[in-house]
C-alpha cells in the first residue's frame, strides 16, 4: 500500500527525477528537434544530434534500471515479512547506477556544449 509513495518520492521523484534534471528522454528529443532548426552548419548539427542520441540512450538505459529496481522494491514492501537488508541492497545498487548515469550525462552535456556556439546554445534554451 505504500508503493506509490516509495516509487515517486523516495526513489527519486518519478520519471522526471531519474536524471536529477540533467536529461530525460523527452527533454533530449525536444533538444534534438531544436538543434535541427538552430544549427545551420550540417556537420556540427550532425555531431550534436549524435551526442543527443547518446544522451537519449543513456537516459533510456537508466529508466530500465530504475524500473527493475522499482519492481524489487515493490515486492519487498508488499511482503510484510521481507528483510530490510534486501531492499537496502537494491537501493544501494540503484544509487551506484544512478551516479554513473549522472556522470555520463554530464560528459555528454559538455560534449554537446563544445559542438555549439554560445548563440546556438542560447537559442536552444530560449525556446523552452
Amino acid at each position, binding site marked *: 500500500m505504500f508503493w506509490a*509513495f516509495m516509487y515517486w*518520492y*523516495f526513489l527519486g521523484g518519478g520519471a522526471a*527525477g531519474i536524471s*536529477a*534534471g540533467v536529461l530525460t528522454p523527452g527533454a533530449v528529443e525536444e533538444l534534438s528537434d531544436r538543434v535541427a532548426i538552430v544549427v545551420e552548419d550540417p556537420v556540427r548539427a550532425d555531431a550534436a544530434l549524435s551526442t543527443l542520441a547518446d544522451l537519449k540512450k543513456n537516459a533510456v538505459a537508466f529508466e530500465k534500471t530504475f524500473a527493475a529496481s522499482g519492481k524489487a522494491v515493490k515486492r519487498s514492501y508488499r511482503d510484510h515479512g521481507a528483510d530490510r537488508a534486501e531492499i537496502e541492497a537494491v537501493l544501494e545498487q540503484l544509487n551506484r547506477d544512478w551516479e554513473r548515469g549522472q556522470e555520463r550525462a554530464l560528459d555528454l552535456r559538455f560534449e554537446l556544449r563544445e559542438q555549439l556556439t554560445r548563440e546556438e546554445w542560447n537559442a536552444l534554451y530560449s525556446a523552452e
Partner: protein
Amino acid sequence: MKSSAGLSLTTVTTLVVVLLASCATLKQSPDPGKVQAQIAEARAQELELVRATVTDPARAERLLELLAERDRLVEKHARFLTAHRQKIAVLAADYDARREDFEVLLADFNRQRAAAQKETIDLVADMKATTTADE
C-alpha cells in the same frame, strides 16, 4: 477492501504530488483549492480505512501517526525536488556553467535522496511492525 485501502493511501500521495508540482510550473496548473479539497477527502477516507482495518485502537492510532509522518516526508522531499529541478534547469541553460557547478548540485541531490530512502525504509518498517500481515 485491500485494494480500496491501497487506492486511498496512494491517492493522498498522488494528490500531494500534483499540488506541489503545480507550485513548480505555470504550465497545466490544476486548481490548488480543488486539489486541496481532494487531499482532505482522500485523507478522511484513509483514516476511515485504517480504523476499519486495524482493529486494535492503539495500533490504529499509531498507524495514523505514521501516515502523518509519511505525508510530512513526502512534502519535504517534494519541495526539495522542485527546488532542485529549478536550479539545475537554470544551470543547464547556462553556456558558461562549469562541470563542478553541476557536480555540487548532483552531490546534494544524491545525499538528500539517500537520506529520504533511509527515512522511508525506517518508516515502512515501523508501519509493518504496527500491523499484522493480514492487515
